């Protein structure tokens, strides 16, 4: 009888450890994807800096000020990253609109090259965002399902936030010349 209880205890322990490792592995994937977003945001910031320098005399004062409020630092929360991404979207949209206003700017080789680079880094950011969200969804589903939720509760794990950029903010851009 005691042997049976002992065996049962070992089985439960092994199950517990396996699920603990599974949750931790899922969490690590989320962290890895999170750092992918950091890399993409940094690249985007660098290219935007170059682009803004190229169009400085054309863009509005408000655009430059908005860009100066963007601060990238390590250890940002997802909420802060979403805010930074939205600000970059706004600056990027304003630069595009400015280029439409000034054809000589829009057709310059330097600007076109920078615009292509921006498109490229934006696509990478999209991919990083989607990968992050896919991993977060997998993680959130894992810790919500019974009986793994018991293990998650013991480990103190909570649902993570998705990276959802506020698309509507990109529409709210005024042209100021």
């Amino acid at each position, binding site marked *: 009888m005691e042997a049976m209880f002992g065996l049962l205890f070992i089985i439960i322990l092994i199950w517990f450890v396996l699920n603990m490792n599974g949750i931790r592995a899922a969490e690590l994937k989320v962290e890895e994807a999170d750092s*992918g977003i950091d890399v993409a945001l940094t690249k985007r910031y660098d290219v935007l800096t170059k682009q803004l320098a190229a169009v400085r005399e054309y863009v509005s004062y408000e655009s430059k000020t908005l860009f100066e409020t963007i601060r990238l630092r390590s250890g940002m929360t997802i909420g802060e990253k979403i805010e930074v991404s939205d600000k970059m979207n706004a600056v990027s949209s304003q630069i595009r609109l400015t280029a439409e206003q000034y054809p000589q700017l829009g057709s310059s080789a330097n600007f076109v090259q920078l615009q292509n680079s921006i*498109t490229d880094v934006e*696509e990478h950011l*999209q*991919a*990083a965002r*989607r*990968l992050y969200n*896919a991993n977060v969804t997998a993680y959130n589903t894992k810790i919500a399902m019974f009986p793994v939720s018991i293990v998650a509760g013991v480990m103190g794990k909570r649902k993570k936030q998705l990276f959802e950029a506020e698309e509507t903010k990109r529409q709210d851009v005024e042209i100021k010349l």
Partner: protein
Amino acid sequence: MQLDRGKIVKELRVLKKTYSFYKRIEMVPALICAFSGLWILIDIIRCYKIIISNGNVFVPWSIVAIVCSLLLYKILNKIKLSVQRKYEMVFKRMMAEPILRSTFENIKYNPEKGFSRHEVKKMQLLLMNISLDEHFESEDLIEAEYMGVQFMQSDILLSEYRRRNDNYIRPKDYEGREILIDGRLARFSYKLDIKGVVQIATKKGMKWKRYMGKKRVEVEDTEFNKNFDVFADDEHSVFYALTPQVIDYFNSLRVGNKEQIAATMDGEFLYVLRYGKGGLFKADIKEEFDIDQKEKQIYAEIAEMQRLVKVLHLHKRAERE
């Protein structure tokens, strides 16, 4: 595009009649060989009677007849196949090629050339349990440009003699080999900033998390994950390459369609293999030839090539380079 329909139908009809003629007279040596056991038995009886009774020289006419029949059968079969080949060439030259030339500019078409086995191996297509070392044929190579995107397409046929231990009933080629792949392989210029390759293939029930050193990746689209396996060196590259438009495109290929698909992106090119429904330039001499239906089929295939370029925005990427 105005085709000389009367001439095409007339030429193909003549070739079809020639083919049917040779197919009929091929039956004669085939029948002789089919009853070879009977002829040999007759000769054994004759041999016994001649040698035991008269001691005259015995000539095994059955063996002579069988050998001559086999030779005749081979010759007639070769002629039959050459007529079949000519039928296909007439169809390609008089029908398929003019339609292609009217659609694409700067097109090069070679009915006898295709991708080499080595080129197809380098594409790293996800063809599980299918080896490219089997019998390989590739022809009808098209090189053209559409909306600034360079592309190549060729029919490919992969077949083998070995009988596989699975439940699939496979069609056979003209030499009696089981056909593993009979389709179209296209290569599009598609520069992507990815690490390694991204491989996509129609799902075949494989559950492995890794295959040939690459890891299985699932995207956020459940429909896509249900229909396709994706393997890659890097997860981020999968999400970068498989944008929502690309995912929708692949999902649309599976709607009401039994074709198998294998695609690979290696950062320079996009390779798409579609097989299960034959090649673009196929005209079967054994089937009834419907010129209107064939014309529609060719235009549909061309439209599919064009759709891929537009839907995946390959032309926009080409503009950026």
